[in-house]
Each structure stands twice: as C-alpha cells, then as structure tokens.
C-alpha cells in the first residue's frame, strides 16, 4: 500500500517538474537546520536577494531556483543532489556551507557535468589533486588562515597559541596559519567538536601567556569560546581568527566582548566598490538594517556569476563547454572587487584584515582595516593537473 502511495507522490511531483522543463534550473542545497543553520540562513537570505534582483531570471532567461534544506548532513546532501540531477535535471548547483557536504556531492555533479559554484567551502582536495573544471570556488579554506598568519607577523606577535576543534579541517586551518606565520607557536590546542565549556583551555592559554591567540572555532563553539575567554580576564590577549569565526552571526551573538577581534576575509561589507555598495544597501533594506555576513555576500555573488555566464552563452546552458568558459572569465562585477581564477578554478584575489568595532550608529560590526594579501593564490594549485 505504501509503495503505491510513494508512486502517487512521485507521479504528482513529476508532473509538476515537467511543466517547467524549458527553464534553466539551479539546484540550491540549503543548510538551514543542523550544525550550520545560522550560516545557512545567511546564505539563503543572500540567494533570495539575488533572485529578487534578477527578477527570477538568469541572463534574461526564465529560470527556476530549487531550494531544499538538507540539514547540514553530507549523506542528505548527497541524496538531495541525486534528486536534483536525476529528477530535476539541474544546470547549476550551489549551496552547502560545510566542506564535508561539498566533498560528498562533488563527484556526482562533476560526473553529470553540472557546474558547482561553491557559495562557501573551498576544500583543499578540490584545489589540488581532485580539482575539477566543474568546481568554482569563492576562496580556498586555508587562505583566510594564511592571511591571519601574516597579520600576526605584521602586528609583531612573537608567540601564539592556536586552538581548533579536533577534526582534520581544524588541523588544516591551523596549518594554514602556520604557513605564513614566522613567530613561535607556543601550543596547539584541539578541542572536542561541539564543546560547550572552555575553562580548561582558557586556563592553559593563561598559563602559556602568549602574545596572541589564533582560534578557528566555527559556529556555537566560537561563540562559547569568546564569551568565556573575555569573562576569564584574558581581554588583553589579542584574538585573531579567520573571518568565519568572527562574522556577523558570531558578533551579534557575543556582543561587546567581540570588540577588537582581528579577522581576515576576502570580502567585507564596507569594501568600496559599486557592486558591493548596491548589495549591502539592498540587503540592509530588505533585512531590517542588519549587515550581511560573508555567507550572504558569497551566495549573492554566486548567483550573479551564474547570471553573467548564462548571458554570455546566450542562454544555451546545454553547451557545458561554453558555460565553463564563460564562468572561468567572469563578466560581472563581484562584490569582492577584482579577481580572476587560477588553473584550479580557485580565485586569485585580495584578502582583507577586519576588526570588530562600532559603526556610526553604535552597532557592533566588522570594519575594514586594510589589505593583507594582494591577489593571493592558494597553496594547492600546484597539485592540480587541469
């Protein structure tokens, strides 16, 4: 009986899909529940703003933007992509926040020749050995940390303590920091994934008396850590982080204690260029005056890149070679300003230093300090045979 019901549901869905067969289809895997929910919601807002601006079209052609939550779970991401590919026959893919989901869904998309424009993660595997002409990155995961390492040099920090969750990505981020950092690493602390209490680690940091602390603790972990770090009286030890650990979601949740945190990113909301000014003001208008985070910016930028590519190929998205070529030489103005792609389809671009402070209205937010790395390329490009 149940199988019959399955079939009925399937048939109904299928009929609905067939009605729009001619449209260009974009599969967006949303991350709005589960571990990356807050970041995923930022990205969703960015996508929605872009879709609104584009009038629901891509390159002037009618388009359909499929948006489905996969709860931050790589297996579920995989199933969603199977559905997008087999049932909906998408032409573009984007969405996941986590590297694990990106790594899970990539191979199926590449095999199906569907361009995957990442709206966040840039795993090292895709930058190096497993690079693919179908994958386009916003940045490589370690580049934020490399910039942070350079910031630590420039600030004259002679010794630092590093802290990250105990999983390979955590180690990658710390290695990224060490790549350009020239001082001494006093200690590397690895914490449990999803840890709530950081008192033990904070005591270790106090005992080590470093010039600065570099932390990569995404989401709730970072919020817990910074709150407890400042409460523990270590306010005088500067905190440096890659942008993910000090973006709007964390800033708004932590508040005052975030002030002074140095962080690096390839975009900031006060970056001066016309595309960004337009994006930030439209975003603040649509979402009650709040500043967009880097996730919202990347989501918005990703759809703009698709729009430009579709326009460049005159709407003929079936010609994948042409689409890839158009994507590779982007003809739109990115909110991050000038950039170009390296051979591995990972961007060569600027990375900026941001500092958390107050804006003219007294709102706590990131402020642009300066450019840390100019037209910087990732460290893995050499391993990419493409």
């Amino acid at each position, binding site marked *: 009986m149940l199988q019959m019901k399955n079939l009925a549901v399937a048939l109904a869905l299928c009929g609905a899909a067939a009605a729009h067969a001619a449209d260009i289809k974009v599969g967006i895997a949303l991350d*709005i*529940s*589960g*571990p990356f*929910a*807050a970041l*995923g*919601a*930022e990205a969703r807002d960015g996508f929605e703003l872009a879709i609104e601006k584009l009038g629901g079209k891509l390159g002037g052609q009618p388009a359909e933007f499929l948006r489905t939550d996969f709860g931050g779970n790589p297996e579920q991401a995989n199933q969603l992509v199977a559905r997008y590919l087999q049932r909906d026959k998408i032409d573009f893919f984007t969405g996941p926040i986590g590297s694990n989901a990106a790594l899970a869904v990539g191979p199926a998309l590449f095999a199906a020749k569907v361009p995957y424009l990442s709206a966040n993660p840039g795993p090292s595997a895709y930058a190096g050995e497993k690079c693919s002409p179908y994958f386009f990155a916003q940045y490589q995961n370690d580049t934020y940390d490399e910039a942070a390492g350079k910031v630590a040099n420039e600030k004259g920090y002679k010794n630092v303590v590093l802290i990250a969750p*105990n999983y390979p990505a955590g180690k990658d981020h710390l290695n990224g920091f060490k790549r350009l950092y020239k001082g001494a690493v006093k200690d*590397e*602390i*690895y*914490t*449990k*994934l*999803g840890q*709530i*209490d950081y*008192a*033990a*680690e904070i*005591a*270790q940091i106090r*005992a080590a008396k470093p010039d600065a602390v570099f932390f990569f603790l995404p*989401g*709730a*972990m970072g*919020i*817990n850590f910074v*709150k*407890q770090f*400042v*409460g*523990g*009286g270590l*306010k005088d030890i500067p905190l440096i982080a890659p942008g993910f650990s000090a973006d709007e*979601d*964390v800033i*708004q*949740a*932590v*508040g*005052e204690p975030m002030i002074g945190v140095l962080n690096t990113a390839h975009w900031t909301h006060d970056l001066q260029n016309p595309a960004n000014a337009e994006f930030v003001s439209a975003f603040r208008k649509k979402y009650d005056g709040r500043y967009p985070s880097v996730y919202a910016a990347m989501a918005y930028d990703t759809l703009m890149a698709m729009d430009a590519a579709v326009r460049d190929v005159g709407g003929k998205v079936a010609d994948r070679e042409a689409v890839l070529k158009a994507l590779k030489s982007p003809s739109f103005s990115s909110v991050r300003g000038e950039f170009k792609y390296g051979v591995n389809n990972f961007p060569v671009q600027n990375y900026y230093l941001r500092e958390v402070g107050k804006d003219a209205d007294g709102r706590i937010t990131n402020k642009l300090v300066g450019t840390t790395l100019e037209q910087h390329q990732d460290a893995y490009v050499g391993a990419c045979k493409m």
Partner: protein
Amino acid sequence: MDAIFVFEQLLNGLGYGLMLFLIAAGLTLVFGIMDTMNLAHGSLYMAGAYVAARVHEASGSFAGAVLAAVLVTVAVAALLELLVVRHLYRRDHLVQVLATFGIILIADDAVKAIWGVAPLMASTPAALAGPVQLFEGLPYPAYRLLLIGAGLLVALGLYLLVNNTRVGMLVRAGASNRQMAEFMGVRVGAVFSFVFALGAGLAALAGALMAPISSVQVGMGEAILIPALVVIVIGGIGSVRGAFVAALLVGLVDTAGRAFLPPALRAVLPPSVAADLGPALAGIAMYVLMAAVLTLKPAGLFPARA
C-alpha cells in the same frame, strides 16, 4: 605545571560539573520519580535560555530575566504536561522517547519561527563580566563563581526538599515504589505534576544561567542533553545525590582529560601520535567513565530503586 594551575583546573572541573548538575537535577527528578524519559528536557533548557536572553536585553535586568525565564518555561511545561506528558506516565519508556522526540522536533521549529535561526545575544550581567582575583596569580571569572554558587544552592535546596518536607516524602515514596505509594493514598498525579513543573523550572534556570557563557541557538538543548543524561545515569537514575556526585565526577574527569591528558601523552609518546590521540581520548573521557561505572555498577553509583 604549578600548583595554582592544577587548582584552577580543579575549580574549572567543579564549575563545569555544577553546570551539568543544574541541568541534570531536573532531569533526574522527572526521570526517577515519574519514571518518564523526557528527552524534551533539553527543549525546556533552550526555552529558558531564549526567554532569559530576550528579557535581559529588553529590560537590562539579569535577575528579572532569570525569573521570567523560569516562570515562562514552567507555564509552557504545565501546558505540555497537561496535553502530552500526563498521558505518558504509565507508558513504556520507548513510547516516551518517541513522544518527547516529537516534542523536540516541534520545539526546534517553533523557536526558529519565533526568534529566527541566528544565535541570540545573551550578555553577562555587567557586574559579573570580568574576573575577580581569587588570590595572587589566579583571576577567576566572576560569573563562573555565580554558577558554582547557584549549583550548590540548587543542590542544597533539593536536598532539603527531598529529605525534610512532606512533598519530598511523597516524592521519595513515589520514586521508590509508585504502586505502593498509590496504594497508601498518595495523589501521585498531583505529585507528578509538581515534580514536572519543578524539573522544568530547574531546566529553565540552567538555561538562563548558561546563556551568558554559551551560544543561545536552536539545537543547544540537544547538545547539552547527552552530557546531562550521562550524569544521571552514572549517578543512578532518580537520585539527586547521585546526580550531584556524578556531575562533579564528570566535570572533573572531562576537565582533567582536556587539561592534563594531552601534555601527559606528549611526554611519553612520539609527538605525532600524541597529537592525534590526546584530544581524541579527552573527547570521549566522559563516555569511558560512564561505561566503566556501569560495568562495575549496572544501576549507577546510587541506585534509587531496589
């Protein structure tokens, strides 16, 4: 590693243990006395944290925020008890798991719909935001001292309530032998409603007090639920004393694992092995402790029931 550092880590372990106790106390009461497995305890904790965070930001009064959190959460819990939990008391544990898991799913979506997905701001009351100098060379977060105090007070209060009051006697009677208590004319239904409300109040208190040092967001209830369950199982389900001892034990073992295990391993093992092994072992210390305790004492340290 000097004496101050070791002392500080002990204090940290104690502090973390008492935080866990705040959450576990309500859970073990409901679990032990009503024999009801309430996975939604984490949702009540979340509700407490959200209400406290919002009220604190709106009113500026932390004490008022904590009070509001407890009142609102108890009201929600009373409704929950009336509609759902009351009908679960006599049911199988697994049915309780099913129903309260359903409540978690509904609660998470409800919180998302009301407050959004982004984590909420929950600041430390200004007076307690910094450290206090415990003695030379040891500044300690004032707010953590408040948490330690609150944990001890709750422990004392529950001890007095359970051992020295008439309600406590009924509660104990219900916990050790429900049928007998009913037989003797105890209005178990009323006692249960009271206990559930009390448990919810404690969950809300824990949520409100934890909000300033942790991330207030959807899913925070599930993250804390597992350590809390570990605590009450080690302690012996239904035993407040057991939960207290177990919470301190878990707090100390977890903290010691994180603070001392990695350096200790580095001293005896090659660096690359130690770097991988240390954090991994520290991460599972709590579960190893639980498995060890249950292997030796299958009903926890202080079994409440014969």
